[in-house]
């Protein structure tokens, strides 16, 4: 059974249908990339999964439980974290306070402290800047903070929306390296990216979204060598 299953999902913005009945699945331990052009519905898909938007039809099933109608704030407690597009760190809170917010739903202080250690280990920069307000960090550092904050909920699956957006090439490398590291520690990753080349290079499988439908799917390696993909998304 797949860890996360999206079935015939349909999402509307008012009268406009953004997602036209898509289905896909994510198995435990996988890195799945959702690629596609601007406006294809990638962000909408993630936001619907974590309850920021509501689906008109279809289902989202997480570890066997239908979470389509579960209020957004309860989903994180089930083991699913979402790193939103544009990072959305709490700019006036310090780095440490941001990370603590990530563990908002958790009660065990010792476990939270251990988790914090782990995050600081993965992102030494965050520890260096723990008392700085998040708004003063660079874009790349804010991205790290957003990822660290999501990890503070100790998720089994992490959804990442455009983590490389607007970052310098060095940071892009670093962010993708960290995603691989998160995956290697056993967390399942659903990754939305415009940078299709990088996304496919670390993903196991990928789905290509085009104007609200899934146009193609398959092994990341196969998609990389797919003529159509190379032309449309890899700029070759």
């Amino acid at each position, binding site marked *: 059974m797949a860890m996360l299953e999206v079935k015939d999902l349909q999402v509307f913005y008012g009268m406009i249908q953004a997602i036209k009945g898509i289905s896909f699945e994510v198995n435990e331990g996988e890195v799945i990339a959702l690629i596609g052009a601007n406006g294809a519905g990638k962000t909408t898909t993630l936001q619907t999964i974590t309850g920021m938007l509501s689906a008109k039809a279809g289902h989202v099933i997480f570890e066997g439980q239908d979470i389509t109608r579960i209020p957004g704030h309860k989903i*994180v407690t089930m083991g699913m974290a979402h790193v939103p597009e544009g990072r959305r760190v709490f700019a*006036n809170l310090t780095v440490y306070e941001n990370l603590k917010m990530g563990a908002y739903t958790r009660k065990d202080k010792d476990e939270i402290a251990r988790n914090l250690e782990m995050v600081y280990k993965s992102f030494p920069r965050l520890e260096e800047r723990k008392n700085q307000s998040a708004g003063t960090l660079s874009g790349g550092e804010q991205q790290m903070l957003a990822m660290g904050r999501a990890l503070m909920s100790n998720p089994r699956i992490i959804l990442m929306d455009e983590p490389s957006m607007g970052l310098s090439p060095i940071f892009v490398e670093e962010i993708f390296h960290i995603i691989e590291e998160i995956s290697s520690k056993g967390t399942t990753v659903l990754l939305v990216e415009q940078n299709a080349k990088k996304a496919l290079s670390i993903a196991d499988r990928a789905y290509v979204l085009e104007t609200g439908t899934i146009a193609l799917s398959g092994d990341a390696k196969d998609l990389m060598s797919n003529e159509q993909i190379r032309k449309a998304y890899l700029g070759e």
Partner: protein
Amino acid sequence: MSFLSYLINGLSLGSVYAIIALGYTMVYGIAKMLNFAHGDVIMIGCYVVFTLMSQYGVHPGISILAAILICTCLGVVIEKIAYKPLRGANSLAVLITAIGVSYFLQNLALLIFGADTKSFTSVVNMPPLHLAGGKLTISAVTIVTVLSCIVIMIALMLFIRKTRAGQAMLAVSEDRDAAQLMGVNVNGTISLTFAIGSGLAAIAGILLCSAYPTLSPYTGAMPGIKAFTAAVFGGIGSIPGAFVGGLVLGIIEILGRAYISSQLSDAIVFAVLILVLLIKPTGLLGKPIQEKV
């Protein structure tokens, strides 16, 4: 000595404004809306105390608790019925609704309690304090008001810093969607904010009416607007700002009334507001507006 006495009166009035302004500023910071019905919640609180104390002879302490409880519930209900359906609507629609709720509460009070002005009995029955050989008299209400304001202010700061619900409020005020992703119940947090703000409004109203003992359906309107001014003056969204703004505004109003003109005292208050906003648009303690990258 009269200056000192004016100053103390100003502090007392300012404390009331500060308590009301805290409600305004918290709701603005967290729900991102101006709740213009906030002032009228004050008036409802006063009527509750008045009715219980003067008509049913209930003990002042119990009357106050009842008023706080009723206003807290009223605030939550107003939010549920009037504002929650407009979550995500443009801010003008919410503003107009808030003004509508304000008129609704005023007219509801008119219907239930009548248009005649009631004379409110102070809930503080202690002798005034005589200082400097009887030259300076401070009424007990004044002392209670100032102390209440300080206690409320400190309690609120601790609540936001130290409790989970307070952290949730901070997160929601910064970024509602991100807060939800952290597992914060945004609707619950907004309800809680309205509950606290309205409970404080009840306290402020009772203190105000104990010092200025006339009560009518429009009693809350002017202090409401003044407290809103105080909140903007101190930097809307900032809790210390509401405190400082309220105190300064109260002092300016009383000193203006004493030394310049009693008719112009309101005009002076608003003129100072305009000046502050011209020089520092985010208010005294407001954070500079950050450009989103």
